[in-house]
């Protein structure tokens, strides 16, 4: 009797403690004027647009800064005015004069030609990760001062030395690195000739819809509406919370504690598809997954017959339908769908017999083994296992060696690999961004993917450099189509997939916009 009563007392105490504990926990919903986004922000290194080149920072730049011109949200191929009210191409074909619109930075300072000069020259001189984009115009630390000049208080003139047209120059100016920062706010923060880089790593000084209110690394990025913005955002703030675990991210959005969740796995998306209160947005992305073969690794990998056979040893449909389930679609050319001139045909499918015949005709004896280095992460490992199974059917053993990204990049740069699985996201909205990576390698002097493949292609390089010079848009698109066909027919790259970014979003969230390129994430029109 006494035991029962003491047990009952114990249970009663535990229960009442639990109730007492649970009572104050009101199940919170996100505040009405705040957008809460759950994702991993562990990759963020710098919010300085001259340096930030990670997914998290790149996704923030369109919300913090404006550029002279920007890509249209729905059709990235269209370039529209932003801080420039208008522009005029010079008769020399190598200059543009921009008339500045009336705009203000978050500080209240007006946007002046001096800000344009400061922003673009500091980006070149700092020479951080994305600087190579501006280098495409021939801008270097020693010539950029002369290349960007003030015409008058409302006009700024840009000239370049590279053999490229003004259309291409405008595309380059849509890249996040061309964001215009407030010189009067940033300059006083400069230390040791860093052009304010140290300060801008965690602060913002732009004219975008939002400003950085607080940034706590690995914890949260809090954006606050920019009161000086010409187009004031609907919501007061955006909180991007670092939730590294995908399971926790799913729970947060399911429970209404987050309005948007990114980076969920195919299984989680599948489970959430029919859940009431949330929807899954599938946004086409310009990201592409491809196999990179090192043609210099051994004589077999250097044979075009092997490259061709490899294209028939990929289970394109199986990977997209069974493994990635909506995260990607089949795409077999170096320009993603949505870019002008992109080839959308898919001439290759899994055909083991054909691959075997190509190998035999090419004098390649099976069986043999290939070292296959792969990012130690999903979905790369799953895709690698699928490739391992299909290549094995033709007598090729893929020895999967998972590794961290920087090691795989380092081995790519040093040419110390046989085969790897990589992805590519264009750096700016122009076909040259991808063409320059895959179709340029005249003499191993530039760090291109073609160089990493050990593939020296002087002719294709010339064709690529001719394409970027072409001023006629239709002719230019045709040139890129031709280049893609050549690379599709014979190259040490096997293009397989184009991504679909799947974003889980609360039903309450309206007007969320996301475009094809990684930087095209917009929170300014979002309402709840």
């Amino acid at each position, binding site marked *: 009797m006494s035991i029962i009563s003491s047990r009952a007392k114990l249970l009663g105490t535990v229960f009442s403690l639990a109730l007492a504990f649970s009572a104050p926990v009101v199940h919170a919903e996100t505040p009405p004027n705040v957008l809460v986004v759950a994702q991993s922000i562990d990759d963020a290194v710098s919010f300085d647009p001259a340096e930030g080149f990670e997914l998290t920072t790149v996704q923030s730049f369109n919300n913090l800064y404006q550029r002279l011109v920007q890509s249209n949200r729905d059709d990235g191929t269209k370039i529209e005015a932003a801080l420039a009210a208008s522009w005029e191409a010079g008769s020399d074909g190598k200059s543009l004069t921009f008339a500045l619109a009336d705009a203000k930075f978050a500080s209240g300072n007006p946007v002046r030609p001096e800000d344009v000069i400061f922003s673009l020259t500091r980006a070149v001189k700092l020479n951080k990760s994305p*600087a190579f984009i501006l280098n495409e115009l021939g801008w270097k630390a020693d010539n950029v001062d002369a290349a960007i000049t003030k015409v008058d208080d409302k006009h700024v003139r840009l000239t370049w030395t590279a053999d490229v047209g003004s259309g291409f120059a405008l595309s380059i100016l849509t890249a996040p690195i061309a964001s215009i920062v407030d010189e009067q706010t940033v300059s006083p923060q400069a230390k040791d000739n860093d052009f304010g880089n140290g300060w801008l790593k965690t602060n913002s000084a732009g004219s975008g819809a939002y400003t950085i209110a607080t940034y706590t690394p690995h914890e949260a990025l809090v954006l606050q509406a920019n009161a000086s913005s010409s187009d004031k955002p609907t919501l007061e703030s955006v909180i991007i919370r670092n939730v590294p*675990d995908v*399971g926790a991210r799913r*729970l947060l959005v399911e*429970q209404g504690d987050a309005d948007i969740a990114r980076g969920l796995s195919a299984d989680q998306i599948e489970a959430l598809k029919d859940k009431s209160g949330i929807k899954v947005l599938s946004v086409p992305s310009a990201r592409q997954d491809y196999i990179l073969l090192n043609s210099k690794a051994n004589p077999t990998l250097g044979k075009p017959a092997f490259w061709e056979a490899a294209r028939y040893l990929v289970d394109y449909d199986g990977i997209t339908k069974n493994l990635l389930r909506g995260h990607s679609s089949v795409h077999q050319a170096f320009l993603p769908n949505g870019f002008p001139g992109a080839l959308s045909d898919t001439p290759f499918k899994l055909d083991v017999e054909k691959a075997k015949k190509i190998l035999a005709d090419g004098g390649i004896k099976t069986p043999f083994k290939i070292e296959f280095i792969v990012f130690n992460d999903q979905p790369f490992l799953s895709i690698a296992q699928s490739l391992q199974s299909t290549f094995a059917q033709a007598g090729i053993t893929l020895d999967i060696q998972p590794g961290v990204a*920087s090691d795989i990049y*380092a081995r790519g740069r040093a040419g110390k690999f046989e085969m790897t699985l990589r992805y590519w996201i264009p750096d700016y909205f122009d076909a040259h961004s991808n063409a320059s990576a895959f179709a340029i390698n005249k003499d191993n002097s530039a760090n291109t993917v073609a160089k990493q493949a050990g593939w020296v292609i002087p002719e294709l390089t010339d064709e690529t450099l001719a394409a970027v010079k072409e001023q006629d848009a239709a002719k230019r698109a045709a040139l890129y189509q031709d280049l893609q066909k050549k690379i599709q027919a014979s190259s040490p790259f096997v293009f397989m997939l184009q991504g679909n970014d799947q974003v889980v979003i609360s039903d309450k969230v309206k007007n969320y916009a996301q475009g094809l390129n990684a930087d095209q994430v917009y929170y300014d029109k979002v309402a709840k």
Partner: protein
Amino acid sequence: MPQRATPDNADMTNSRQRNSWRELSFVWPLSKWLWSFALTLFGLALVTFAMTRLSPIDPALQLVGDHASQSTYQQARLELGLDQPLPVQFFRYVETALSGNFGQSISTGQPVAKDIARTFPATIELATAAIILGASVGLALGITAAMRQGTWVDGLARFVSLFGYSVPIFWLGLLMLLLFYARLHWAPGPGRADVVFQYTVKSVTGFALIDTWISGKAGAFRDALAHLALPAIVLAFHALAAISRLTRAAILTELGQEYVTTARAKGANLRRIVFIHILPNISGTLLTVIALSYASLLEGAVLTETVFAWPGIGRYLTTAMFAGDMPAILGATLVVGASFVLLNAMTDLGVARLESGKKR
């Protein structure tokens, strides 16, 4: 004229000598300990440095990514000092670390010391809550199990400790989130506070409970406490497994000792024997296991911190390792290592005191 030593003076001199010897006897172990502390930290820094250098991660490439030009890559290598010979890199690091400056983190872009000041309190708060909970429940469970050996209570205690040992901690965390957050709505979700409180309370100490308490906002304090509860319970469960098993085993061993038989012969009941005779005798062992559990919570709560989006030092260190962020790895390892050594020293001191007061 030299003063002759009178008996009184002689006593005073002797007493002074005794005092100075007493002081010396205190100073000598302290300096010995400080030496061992410094050597441990140096060894830790050396091993960690060697490991980061042996790892295949290229910090410069990790920083600039694959698209960057060769000149940007070279510039990053220069800025990180990677062009210097390894011994130079190491001694430069030690030199700056000695001044309390651990350098700049590659992955956060912030001074490492600032990052540690932000992340370590979060871990200390979580680990302390977990060890208080784990030790209280673990001790109670272990004592009850030993006193009722062979009964269902004993069976339950053994099952709980076995379960605590074997269950993957991240899985338990997710399961608890699913049950108490998503299903029952008893607990809040991941993170240290709800968004409504997270940016309205000023961080003074870095400890959410203290900061919300001194802010005077009752709702914020309650929210911080509620956020702490679930991850602390998960970690406590893991800690209590070790504590309850050891407590049970130690008590059962002592029960067979002669002094217990004597106490029994004198008519003492089991409760008295355990609480008055056995527990003081095994308190040193219990203190050691609790301290070890606490130390492992301070550096090993990575998965719990990940599942509960808890921005602690475990996750900071892991992220730094994946990013090849050498200053952050070295700084965080040294801080965790130093707290480990300090905790060990305090435990040794505590055990020595307990041993001297042993009762038979």
